[in-house]
């Protein structure tokens, strides 16, 4: 019991330190290049966590989340121009971007969630391309020209800061949502669907409703993130907001950190997004970042198929068990093994995994 509370304390303490660092980061690091990296990273922390709370928990791998990102970006962009909103007030439109994405998620989910596994992945990609084509071809989306932000009020020196803090709010909100879901009845139903959907149905889980709810929540958050990104970059083009690289990046960051875990997606985004940005400015050849993304994908699939967090946790457990075994005969050779020693450490229910 004491060990459990100690590990909880360590976790909470670590979380608090992380939040404080995140909160003061732009005050300490004022180089605009780095704060720009930071904003991009927070955007991906929020997006990957949102993706994971659907895909990671339910096992349905979506490669169509750029649909929500794009719908959010265009919605916030169009509303900004239509209502002539300026300055920080634009941030207030983000929930509307999320709402538009959530509305899109309903028919999207009702179609795609009828099929499973590989077929589901293919359907999400197909629907993604339909949206990209629509963005190119409708007149209200501005076609090739996309939608640009009107003008800016902030001075260049601290330009990134408002975006940084809004990004931080979205990231924290996204992680909180995932945490709440992971420990809830709803989350348990999602995990049951991941393990055996038909069996879950046979035990009274209304699977379509559960899957669709997670898809819509995930879409809502991703839509807000897309809106923020549009405001930050200042322009939405069909190929930049309905971007296949977004889908791949989100999935890769999720897999790298740990598919279906809480900390994994955050870790994946914290590692990969700065790396991508750094590569983009370091190498004049713009494809280096994309090639490395593909290479990392292969390495993860080969060597860390379950991701850093689960694999690391397993190694830690194994190391602890080995240490325990070595210590026990030394302490007292005649002592019987501790009772209940056969139950694996993953036994703590409802913990942060």
């Amino acid at each position: 019991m004491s060990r459990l509370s100690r590990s909880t304390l360590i976790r909470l303490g670590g979380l608090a330190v992380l939040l404080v660092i995140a909160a003061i980061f732009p005050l300490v690091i004022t180089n605009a290049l780095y704060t720009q990296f930071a904003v991009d990273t927070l955007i991906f922390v929020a997006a990957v966590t949102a993706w994971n709370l659907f895909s990671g928990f339910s096992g349905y791998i979506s490669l169509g989340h750029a649909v929500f990102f794009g719908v959010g970006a265009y919605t916030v962009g169009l509303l900004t121009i239509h209502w002539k909103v300026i300055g920080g007030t634009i941030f207030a439109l983000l929930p509307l971007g999320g709402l538009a994405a959530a509305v899109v998620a309903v028919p999207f989910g009702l179609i795609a969630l009828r099929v499973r596994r590989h077929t589901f992945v293919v359907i999400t990609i197909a629907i993604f391309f339909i949206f990209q084509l629509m963005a190119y071809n409708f007149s209200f989306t501005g076609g090739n020209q996309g939608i640009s932000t009107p003008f800016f009020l902030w001075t260049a020196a601290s330009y990134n800061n408002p975006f940084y803090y809004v990004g931080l709010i979205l990231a924290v909100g996204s992680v909180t949502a995932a945490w709440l879901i992971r420990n809830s009845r709803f989350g348990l139903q999602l995990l049951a669907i991941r393990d055996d959907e038909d069996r879950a149905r046979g035990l009274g889980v209304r699977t379509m409703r559960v899957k669709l709810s997670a898809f819509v929540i995930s879409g809502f958050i991703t839509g807000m993130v897309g809106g923020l990104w549009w405001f930050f970059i200042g322009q939405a083009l069909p190929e930049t907001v309905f971007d296949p690289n977004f889908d791949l990046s989100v999935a890769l960051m999720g897999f790298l950190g740990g598919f279906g875990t809480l900390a994994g997606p955050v870790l994946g985004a914290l590692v990969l997004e700065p790396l991508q940005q750094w590569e983009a400015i370091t190498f004049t050849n713009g494809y280096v970042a994309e090639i490395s993304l593909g290479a990392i994908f292969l390495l993860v699939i080969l060597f860390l198929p379950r991701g850093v967090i689960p694999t690391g946790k397993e190694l830690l457990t194994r190391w602890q068990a080995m240490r325990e075994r070595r210590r026990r005969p030394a302490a007292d050779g005649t002592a019987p093994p501790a009772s209940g020693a056969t139950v694996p450490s993953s036994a703590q229910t409802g913990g942060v995994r």
Partner: protein
Amino acid sequence: MTVLLRTEGVSKAFGGVQALDQASIDVDEGSIAGLIGPNGSGKTTLFNVITGYERVDSGHVYLGGKEITNTAPEKVFAAGIGRTFQLTRVFSRLTVMENMIVAAQHHERGQGRLRNPLARAGGPATRRRAMELLEFTTIAKYAGALAETLSYGQRKLLELAYVLMASPSIVLLDEPAGGVNPTLITMIADRIRQLNEQGTTFLIVEHNMDFVMGLCDKVTVLDYGTAVVSGPPSVVRTDPKVLDAYLGTAEDDDDIPVG
């Protein structure tokens, strides 16, 4: 005695294979009914049809007088039919206790508890009931372990335990004794008898004849998707049609005296 579960002329074909052909069975309330037949005679398909995993081509399924033909699995479970699978299916990456809680979801909803979907899964009452059932099935000590660490026999017990979470009026067991050791078979039979005394009705598919004949009040034999014989074990055991089903048609070898 009243009939609790009844199928009436149920047919189901997979391509050219007629898995069920006008299959009619009925299970009396409070009884333990057996369903036997050679491999491929349609036993599991009949289970799938009853529990909503397959749609019927024709025919009807009734539970306590109410038609439940082609009802979705989650609704069939809610209506009071629990079911286990031939190859056990548990949620391998959830703990044993979490497996139990998944099965309690409908029950909790029915009690008007936990309207809030973000509430923590499994209230104290649910956990207590889950522990009782795990103790009943002798796997309580694994409550905190991941289900994938259980042995095959233990998974069968878990499957039985979580189906009971919703207090179903009838439980359909698909080969509860298949692939488990004799001691465990005796224990499972014992538990089924206990539950039956408390009022749970059972329909059991099983190849282990001692198990079926020793446990069931009535046995129905399926052959080529049709219920050919139905009656008490002593009658079914000696019925020539049953011997035909299992050993081949007697007409082919008329000249050989049987028995």
